[in-house]
């Protein structure tokens, strides 16, 4: 059969497997030299690329670290700033806490809760709590007045200690209706 590939191949082979291609003289030697030159260039390119990649990686890592440090610094600074500024509300709360705890323990328990609420809540809510503070101030001032009187009497007594031993002084005190039995 003429259409059989084997028969066609035999016919083709009768022409020979000669391709007929030729190359210029010294082509393969020239190609070898040319390619070695190109490879040297490629090698340099690869080395340059590797160096560039390494530099990019290192600088990228450094930039990331610097960015993280900066962000950390900024975040920390913004956290600390409100604490560094004195909060007037906190001062009031501290004062109220100090007064209540030193005077009446029962009131202090209640006021400490209220005082902590004051930190969160709006300022007007703190107004009712000022009333007990005023009461405390009044009682404190009375105490101070009483103590001042006693101190004056004592200092006078010290001053007149020697004279008080005399009859004259005793008489004077009796006159003043302020007699102390020494």
């Amino acid at each position, binding site marked *: 059969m003429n259409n059989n590939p084997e028969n066609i191949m035999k016919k083709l082979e009768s*022409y020979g497997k*000669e*391709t*007929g291609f030729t190359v210029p003289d010294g082509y393969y030697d020239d*190609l*070898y030299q040319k*390619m070695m030159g190109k490879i040297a260039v*490629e090698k340099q390119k690869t080395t340059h690329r590797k160096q560039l990649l390494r530099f990019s990686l290192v600088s990228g890592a450094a930039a990331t670290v610097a960015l993280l440090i900066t962000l950390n610094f900024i975040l920390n600074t913004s956290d600390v700033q409100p604490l560094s500024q004195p909060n007037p509300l906190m001062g009031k709360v501290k004062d109220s806490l100090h007064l209540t705890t030193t005077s009446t323990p029962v009131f202090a328990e209640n006021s400490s809760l209220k005082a902590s609420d004051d930190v969160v809540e709006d300022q007007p809510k703190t107004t009712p709590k000022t009333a007990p503070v005023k009461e405390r101030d009044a009682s404190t001032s009375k105490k101070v007045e009483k103590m001042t009187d006693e101190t004056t009497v004592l200092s006078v007594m010290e001053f007149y200690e020697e004279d008080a031993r005399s009859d004259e002084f005793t008489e004077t005190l009796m006159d003043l209706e302020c007699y102390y039995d020494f």
Partner: protein
Amino acid sequence: MAHPNDEYILEMFATEKTREQAFGLLMRKYNTEIYNSVRRIVFSHDDADDIVQNVLIKIWKHLASFRGDSSLKTWITRICVNESLTFIDKKKRMLQLDDEEYVERVLSSIPDDSHFSSDQIVQMVQTGIQSLPEKQRVVFTLRYYDEMPYEEMSKVLDTSVGALKTSYHFAVKKMEEFLSKH
């Protein structure tokens, strides 16, 4: 001159110091085969010269990642085929030619090619081969000139053995028609 075996070349190439020397040995061993397999596809010596240089650069760049799934020769042939077909596509686009116009251009250059045999029979066979569609031309040349088994060709062209046999059958039929006409 006896060429070193592929394992020896690959071992040398794996070492940085002997890489260039190994590539030199590879070039000496496969230069002619690379040139012929490319030229059978593109026909023109100048085109083949450009493609061979591209192929060798690719081999230099990628030989380190050669896994050894196929033989080195099969791997190199695959690069040759791919580079040749890519080159033809690019040239067709550049010259704005369709498949038929491109084939006509190649066929018209055959009689005057200074790097081709003046033997009429050889010229006729080569004209027939260049008239084949690109894929069939590749299958035909690999089978006819290189006597490559279909299994190996399947690895080179990433095509099933059945499809390759069919392709070769059509190529042979076209060659028969061409030769019977001339």
